[in-house]
């Protein structure tokens, strides 16, 4: 589904990604862990098409299509979704209006019919039920004045609505207390399916207590230096990143 080969990317003059390889198959959940500054968020941003990054070599294909030449909206329309570490506040833009515009843009790009107001509201209600959310977020402006937990819940809600094929969760656990974390993780788990892949980017192991990954990758200095099963996360928790980085240097 997603195939990343030898990806190198700069921010300004600084090289952040230094030859990153990753293969994600349908339905798989991959965790990418790593210390601060290892390039985790850069990787998520480069995949989603954010400005300010220069890809110098390597490739990233999604279902055989070259992702890197596409606009951010085209990537989303193909089924890519980024849950932001810091969801952006859009004052004045109503959340329901925003969700409808997003869903209909994606449906239209896929050659599906746009949803009318009634079908849309019905769909929204269903999704809220699945995620055990109430509708209080819908009437407000997108993320404006939302608490940290509300913002992250809104991200997961968008994901539920847009039904991506590949969701990238960028440090979704940051800034959440344990209750909020559980709500968000439950939401993510409810959206797991054999057709939907996920990349969970995180610094800490604790999110992975709730979202069990199929694979864990350790990112350091812009490269994946170790891959394994979920037990790798536990090992990291125990020994810290220093252990693996030291090992990486020795090898």
């Amino acid at each position, binding site marked *: 589904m997603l195939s990343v080969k030898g990806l190198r990317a700069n921010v300004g003059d600084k090289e952040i990604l230094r030859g990153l390889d990753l293969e994600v198959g349908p339905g798989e959940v991959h965790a990418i862990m790593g210390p601060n500054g290892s390039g985790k968020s850069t990787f998520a941003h480069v995949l*989603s*098409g*954010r*400005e300010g990054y220069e890809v110098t070599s390597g490739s990233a294909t999604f279902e055989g299509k070259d992702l890197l030449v596409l*606009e*951010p*909206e085209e*990537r*989303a*329309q193909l089924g890519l*979704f*980024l849950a*932001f570490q810091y*969801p*952006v506040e*859009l*004052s*004045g*833009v109503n959340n329901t*209006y*925003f969700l409808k*515009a*997003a*869903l209909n*843009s*994606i449906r239209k*790009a896929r050659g599906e019919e746009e949803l009318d107001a009634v079908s849309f509201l019905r769909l929204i209600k269903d999704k809220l039920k699945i995620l055990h959310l109430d509708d209080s977020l819908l009437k407000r*402006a997108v993320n404006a004045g939302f608490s940290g937990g509300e913002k992250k819940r809104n991200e997961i809600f*968008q994901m539920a609505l*847009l039904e991506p094929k590949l969701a990238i969760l960028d440090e979704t656990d940051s800034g959440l207390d344990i209750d909020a974390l559980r709500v968000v993780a439950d939401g993510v788990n409810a959206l797991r399916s054999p057709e939907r892949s996920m990349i969970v980017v995180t610094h800490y192991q604790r999110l992975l207590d709730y979202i069990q990954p199929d694979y864990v990758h350790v990112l350091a200095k812009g490269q994946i230096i170790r891959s394994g099963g979920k037990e790798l996360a536990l090992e990291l928790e125990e020994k810290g990143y220093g252990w693996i980085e030291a090992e990486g240097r020795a090898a």
Partner: protein
Amino acid sequence: MTAGLPTGFEGWVAEAARASGGRGLEWLDAQRRSALEQASAQGLPTNKDEQWRYTSLKGLQEQAFALSAEPLTALQPDDIEEALVAGLDSHRVVLVNGRFSPELSPLEDLPEGVRIAGLAQLLESDPDVLRGELNGVAGDELPLFAALNTAGLDDGVVVIVDDRRIVERPIELIHLSVGLDEPRVAQPRNLVILNAGAQATLIERYLSLGDSLYCTNCVTEVSLGRDALLAHERIQDESPNAFHITGFYLRQDTASSYRGINIGLGARWARTDLCVSFSGEHAECDLQGLYLAGDGQLMDYHLDVDHSLPNCRSQENFKGILYGKGRAVFDGLVFVAEDAQKTDAAMSNRNLMLSESAEVDTKPQLEINADDVKCSHGTTVGRIEPEMLFYLRSRGISAPIARRMLCLGFAGEIIDKLGAEPLRDYVTEQVGRRLESAPLS
């Protein structure tokens, strides 16, 4: 009689004297003569004049407009269908080229204690009602365009609401311009009086059938009695080739409340002067504004809020969206007199620039002579945040639609304050339509 007027403006009043010659009202003639003298004495302002520093009158002067003095009676109700806002339930008053049109103004079901009439009509039938009221708020010292309006004063709309009357439905003044063979200027004069405790909503819309070249030079005077409450929504959506000038004069008595929303969308050149004064304490004035300026458009706003008495509150909040080679001017002055203690005033002007070549000159000013006041002012000129744009695009929304959503979000703060939903929808659509075709460079 027009000798001495700035070149190009002779025609603005030339026919007025002839058209209204028969009124036989000495006080009115004296007012007109005095205004004409003032207009002649002032000459044409230049950019050395602080009030006209950023705005050139050259384009307007070159047109040599003539006054459209004769009423245009050929329009049928069907003809103005396109000028109406779908679903807006109002007491509708229509002026065509500055002249009140009784045929198009269905005013049969006015509630008791509310009087709405054409100004010319009232000058004929009941002139005493107007004596002392015309120019009662604007005063005797008039700037050029208000003086020209007064010198040519003859028609417009008069609204008078008696003590403690509450007008439920909005009163809607539609100032319609219809293209004529030669460029015309219309100089409607509106007078709105809410007596003590009265409440009303007034919607003023300026628009045209077609995209002809003309000029509107309107003056609206509003007088609010003690405890009166007026919601006033002005939507300037003139033809893209038109010139528009507003002189708005508001006087508020004790504990009255004024909530004004000024939306500027149309005209190639628009100048709006909003002047507020207080004749009693504890009055509240809220001036909100939204303007769009695109290629070849100028939107020029001057606010003059005079806190001469203590304990009054005013808020001025104007937002602009500029694109293409659009230009805007915001020049706001809040003046607080020495004994106007406990004045509470906040002025803000925020601008969203969608292109490199758009320009805004913004100058909010406070002049405070009292020592126990709460006053603030602020101004911003910014662009669409790339973060916001990326967030929307990452959800599958194309860049142009995302930009429009963000602009409408910016504008929504003002649009959402309009009282009637059909009007909010209408303005949102008008704004959206302009942004859709807005060049971004």
